[in-house]
């Protein structure tokens, strides 16, 4: 069985969602309230083997029950048992290779069932098989839905480790009444044991009751005694897997979840669809990676389809990009995107910044300096916002990504942008060979922020700071690299002027240059020579400290190009989506990670 399409209307935080799926292993990533778990819930409900899951008003988008809640799933690779004419054989539709649905299972299409769950304002659920382009529907029963083999790992992790009705372990048991007869025999044995027990205080109490009853003339009791109430077979739920003497319920959550997963994997001979909420839950990193590899193999062998949610960078790193589905919800519209085939180096981009896939928007810094510089800026901005009781960058979900230089920054920004993460690219403007790349990134929707024409970060900062600010920058550089080195590198840019001390005004005199000449020399020295690797701030921590210098001086820098660029970066980093409806937003937040 394979889920190929999911269409949702008016379900919890999702007003509308249409998802086409051709993967067998899907890791849903996206920011915390993007409705990932709601999607899993939706799959679980439309394929639910239960007769009547309970619905409430809160299951409707925005609690608005004027339109019905519907969840529609297209399932291929149907079990033989459902293809019978007496089952749903005549209700099959076709899924063509271009993704369109056709009314009949044509020879050049894959046979499929389109299953729709509708919940009306009376909160009555109905499950039907529908056909594209037709109003004809036909009911699908709970037991037919059970044959579709959907299994949700996450809720009640112990359930499938018990011989409970409908559990995976029961499914694995040959003959349906095996567990019942075991439990009944045990109960009969226990009854006998109680009757056969040595006389104890219970017998004395029973004797008292009997003589009292006889005095009242109630009934001709002959032998009142303690006994165990006869049991029923329905309590097979109490039968659970044990390892030796130890019930599996005593094991850790991760072990229980994995065991339950492995039992389910075996229980559905025809393959099943497994939904996993937060795969990493209860698992150490090495076990998580192992499980992912196992699931990948099972999915590759076409035994399983696995749909999981994750907040774990390890999951993103371990999987390949084609396993990822990026889920985003904006104003109730949920989009589910696979990584497009044409993305170059997507694997590298996502492995380099797995956490960005778990956020909402990305700022790609050209290299280590920019990344550090951005971190420094954000630290300061966050402090200011905290004081003003505004949300911090982590709440907004903006993640900084290292572009690693060259053409990679533009590529990474484009990768994130194309998956729906609004992306900002912060780049130097002194290298003409990347201009075309930047232009195409902008064409893809990336916001490109570059320093003034011809300038690198160091140029822009050195040329913009006040004299005091520039002195602070020099002090920072000296702290990072030592007096000698800094004096030598600046002196080299001033015709090998002999500089002394660490005071800029003094240097200006010693080198006999004007302020502009000195700034040019400092900027050039700060950038260093690529081959020598002697740039002053080419490390994240250095970039971060540089940002602190700029921020300290910022009050005096109004109107500079530097400040307007930083202003735009700030605006991007703290962007908050307009909230069309407060209740809907709140609901999204409540249900998404429920």
């Amino acid at each position: 069985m394979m889920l190929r399409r999911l269409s949702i209307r008016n379900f919890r935080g999702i007003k509308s969602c249409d998802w086409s799926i051709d993967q067998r292993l899907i890791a849903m990533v996206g920011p915390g309230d993007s409705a990932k778990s709601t999607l899993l819930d939706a799959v679980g409900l439309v394929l639910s083997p239960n007769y009547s899951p309970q619905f409430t008003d809160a299951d409707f988008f925005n609690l608005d029950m004027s339109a019905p809640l519907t969840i529609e799933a297209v399932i291929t690779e149907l079990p033989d048992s459902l293809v019978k004419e007496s089952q749903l054989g005549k209700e099959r539709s076709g899924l063509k290779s271009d993704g369109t649905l056709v009314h009949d299972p044509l020879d050049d299409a894959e046979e499929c069932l389109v299953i729709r769950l509708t919940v009306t304002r009376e909160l009555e659920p109905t499950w039907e098989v529908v056909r594209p382009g037709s109003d004809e529907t036909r009911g699908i029963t709970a037991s037919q839905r059970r044959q579709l083999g959907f299994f949700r790992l996450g809720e009640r992790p112990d359930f499938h480790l018990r011989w409970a009705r409908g559990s995976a372990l029961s499914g694995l048991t040959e003959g349906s009444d095996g567990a019942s007869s075991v439990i009944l025999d045990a109960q009969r044995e226990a009854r006998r044991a109680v009757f056969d027990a040595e006389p104890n205080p219970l017998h004395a109490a029973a004797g008292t009751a009997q003589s009292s009853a006889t005095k009242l003339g109630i009934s001709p009791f002959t032998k009142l005694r303690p006994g165990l109430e006869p049991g029923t077979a329905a309590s097979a739920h109490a039968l659970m897997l044990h390892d030796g003497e130890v019930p599996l319920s005593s094991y850790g959550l991760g072990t229980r979840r994995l065991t339950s997963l492995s039992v389910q994997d075996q229980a559905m001979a025809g393959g099943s669809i497994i939904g996993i909420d937060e795969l990493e839950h209860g698992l150490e990193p090495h076990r998580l990676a192992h499980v992912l590899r196992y699931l990948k193999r099972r999915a590759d062998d076409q035994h399983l389809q696995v749909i999981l949610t994750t907040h774990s960078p390890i999951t993103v790193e371990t999987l390949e990009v084609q396993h990822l589905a990026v889920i985003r919800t904006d104003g109730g519209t949920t989009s589910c995107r696979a990584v497009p085939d044409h993305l170059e180096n997507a694997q590298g981009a996502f492995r380099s910044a797995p956490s960005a896939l778990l956020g909402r928007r990305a700022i790609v810094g050209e290299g280590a300096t920019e990344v550090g510089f951005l971190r420094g800026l954000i630290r300061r901005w966050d402090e200011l916002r905290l004081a003003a009781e505004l949300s911090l960058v982590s709440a907004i979900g903006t993640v900084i990504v290292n572009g690693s230089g060259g053409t990679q920054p533009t590529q990474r920004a484009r990768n994130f942008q194309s998956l729906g993460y609004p992306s900002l690219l912060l780049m130097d403007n002194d290298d003409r060979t990347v201009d075309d790349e930047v232009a195409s990134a902008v064409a893809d929707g990336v916001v490109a922020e570059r320093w003034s024409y011809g300038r690198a970060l160091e140029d822009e900062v050195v040329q913009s700071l006040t004299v005091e600010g520039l002195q602070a920058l020099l002090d920072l550089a000296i702290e990072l690299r030592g007096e000698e080195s800094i004096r030598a590198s600046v002196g080299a840019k001033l015709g090998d002027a002999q500089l002394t001390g660490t005071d800029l005004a003094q240097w200006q005199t010693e080198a006999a240059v004007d302020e502009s000449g000195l700034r040019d020399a400092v900027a050039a020295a700060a950038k260093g020579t690529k081959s020598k690797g002697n740039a002053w701030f080419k490390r994240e921590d250095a970039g971060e400290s540089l940002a602190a210098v700029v921020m300290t001086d910022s009050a005096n820098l109004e109107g500079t190009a530097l400040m307007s660029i930083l202003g735009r970066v700030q605006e991007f980093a703290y962007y908050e989506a307009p909230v069309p409806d407060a209740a809907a937003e709140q609901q999204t937040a409540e249900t998404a990670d429920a």
Partner: protein
Amino acid sequence: MAKFEVPRDQVVVRTIDSWAFDLISHFPLLAELDVPPSPDWNRSAEYHRGAATAAQSQAVRKMLRLSYDMVLVDEYQDCLIDQHGLVVAVAQAVPTTVLGDPLQSLFNFGGNQPVDWAIHVLPTFPLVEVDYRPRRWPENEALGTWLVEIRENLLQGRPIDFSTAPIALVRRDDARTFVRICFRALKLDGAVAVLGQFRNDCVSAASNLQGTYSVMEAIDEKVPAKLASTIDTKPAAQVAKALVDFAINASAGLAGHIPSAKRVRLGNGQTFTTTKDELKSAYAAINNVRSKVSPTAIRAALTEIAALPGVTIHCREAWYEVTRSIAVAETDDCTVAEALLLTRNHARVAGRRPSDRIVTRPLLAKGLEYDHVVILDPSRYSAQELYVALSRGARSVTVIAESPVLAARRMAGGSPEESVPPIRAS
């Protein structure tokens, strides 16, 4: 199936037509045919061809393969050529066996084209020789044996010699010879059928017999008459409801399929639908009646109703009377009430079960069995009609004829190849 204790969930019984319509209404693209919600049986040949097209698709073949171990088609001699095409398509997916007896093929009237055994059937379904066991004649084995013997003569168009046959041969002295014979037959034990050929001569014979033989009376004779008059005079919605009410009274197991609330809706002209697939074609047929009353629509509705799962007709006589009346109205172009009245004109209830003494004809008697049979004039029958007539009586057969040797009979319809034995005889 119930008689042989075949569990109900192990077998599905359908008519070819309703199965075909059901298949194409589910798979119009595979059938390359769009159909309205209710079948129009004038287009049944198209339905058969569409269903055959659909049955050749991978998806339908897979469904058939997964659903059925075997397909059996009975009364194959009555299968039309387009129906045969569908059966051949089904046979590609599931092992299929067809059962039939060309000597009992009576559907050659009108534009019907039944299968030709040699041309259509045998090339697809290799002949299986089955021991011919005349099961109907434990009390007259000689008759059973003789019927087996004359099969070849009938098929080969040879004369039939009654003089040595284990039957009572009565020479026709005049036009009233049969009256004497039929009156004498009244004294026999068991059911007696007097066989004519057409409606008129049956009615006329019944008339001459002064009502001692009826043309199949209903157990409750008012029911068919009332229904007939409703059909002829009332608005379509009322007719549809009356038809369903009649069917429910004449059968068991139907009320659950069409609950009273739905019947009320039917009569009120409100939407009348079902969500159950197995009922849809019957509902559609009933809706057809409501949209336009015609004997064809009514007959289709009754056929569908009778074929519904779990429905058994216990008022068989009433049922047959109504369905035959509808059939007569269809072929003789009269009202249903007239058709019903004509067949009953001279019948009287004379203290015995009317079905014990009836006048009928091969087309209607086919599939039925009587203890004694009187054949009014074998010289008017085709070979098939003669075989059906001669094989209706389990204990005795009386033939009224001009001479002991009956001239060669014509096979109606096609001309079967030489020495084509039957696949099965009943």
